[in-house]
């Protein structure tokens, strides 16, 4: 399920940018100074984005079902298997996550005790699930703003829902880079665990 997410999300983001291109109005600015323009022309050209709105919509509105289905299966699995106990943040997680960040930055040497995931992971991985639910809801609010008007209103209107949908996606991309960096840093044993589902430690018979 985790691994299916990668190609699916790639397709969703790619087709989403094809759609966004047709009205690419978002930018980050402070006062009159534009810090980031979504997106510069060289980026569109690099990924062959322009003039593919219809194609983008066709992919987006078909693959959205797979993305939703995958998310749903993941949530059902997490609840039924009891894995949610390792995933959801605990009361202490919020304070601890700060220590984890300091550890990651090399400021302290000792990680707080953890089970499967550390405090920062609990928060990040739970957040990404809620973000994907947010993408689903804001997406529906833009896709069918008349039939689901209550939802569109909840998002603060049609234009607001479009912006929220967009910036959630930017959030995914940022998450992805941090995630990738952490996986590389954690090394082979961790990556193997991501694939096999178990982590291996070796020991001598008598140390048990």
């Amino acid at each position, binding site marked *: 399920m985790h691994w299916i997410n990668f190609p699916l999300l790639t397709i969703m983001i790619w087709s989403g940018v094809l759609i966004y291109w047709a009205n690419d109005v978002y930018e980050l600015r402070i006062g009159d100074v534009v810090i980031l323009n979504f997106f510069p022309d060289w980026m569109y050209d690099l990924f062959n984005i322009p003039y593919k709105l*219809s194609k983008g919509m066709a992919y987006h*509105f078909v693959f959205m079902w797979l993305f939703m289905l995958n998310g749903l299966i993941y949530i059902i699995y997490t609840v039924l298997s009891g894995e949610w106990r390792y995933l959801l943040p605990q009361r202490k997680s919020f304070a601890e996550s700060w220590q984890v960040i300091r550890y990651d930055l090399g400021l302290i040497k000792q990680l707080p005790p953890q089970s499967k995931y550390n405090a920062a992971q609990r928060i990040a991985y739970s957040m990404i699930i809620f973000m994907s639910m947010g993408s689903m809801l804001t997406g529906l609010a833009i896709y069918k703003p008349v039939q689901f008007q209550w939802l569109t209103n909840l998002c603060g209107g049609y234009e607001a829902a479009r912006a929220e949908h967009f910036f959630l996606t930017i959030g995914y991309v940022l998450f992805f880079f941090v995630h990738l960096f952490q996986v590389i840093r954690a090394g082979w044993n961790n990556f193997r665990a991501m694939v096999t589902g178990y982590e291996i430690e070796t*020991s001598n018979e008598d140390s048990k």
Partner: protein
Amino acid sequence: MKKITIPENELPKYSRRTWIAMIQLALFSGIGYAGWRWLRKQPLDGGLLGGIPAPLRKGLETNEDLFTRYYDQGRLVKEYPKSKAATDVRINGKIGQDNSFVSEDSWSLSVQKANGDFLEIKLPEIKRLTKTEVIFNFKCIEGWSQISWWGGVRMSEFLKAFSLEKESMFKYIGMSTPDTEYTVGIDMLSALHPQTILAYEMNGQPLVLEHGAPLRLIIPVKYGYKSLKQIGSIYFSNGKPADYWAVRGYDYYAGL
């Protein structure tokens, strides 16, 4: 995730298991990639602008079925006060509006009836009917939207006034510009929506040419590309009528 502690001498067994898992991952990646290649090689539907793979068109049609079922005639598009309506209304297309239109006097709306007869309707006959105004957020498929104010006659009222009840039993209404270049097809349910109007006014003034004079469709439950400007003819059918943007890879339904 299980954390398992194993003695050194059992490591090969787990090493084998790891390999199997890795191969599985590679295999599934391969299947996924093959599926993607397959999709990308499918014949294109709506090739006029590059088109979309035929299976995706099927997907869009499935979405259409699903959302047609969920559609409710009672769900109205949000309306705004007139003061919110844009004065500088965006013009986003001129397709099908050639110079054949000279004046309101020379123009008439041609309606093909179920029995094959044609009605030729002049503008004053339409203006005589009860006027309905709609001030709503017009949504373009490109992603922008703008609050605009339109006046005209409800489609449902128009059909009744010209005794087209039998025709409104068809599944679709087809429309085209006088030069037949721009066409749209609309499912009857959406056409009969209480906010779907044949508009002859914008911002309280008679329509200008760029906005589709003398008569245009305004259908708030659809994306803007369904709101055909300068209607020349209307007909009814059970099959999907020709649609300019649908054959260019866009969704036929375009329902909001």
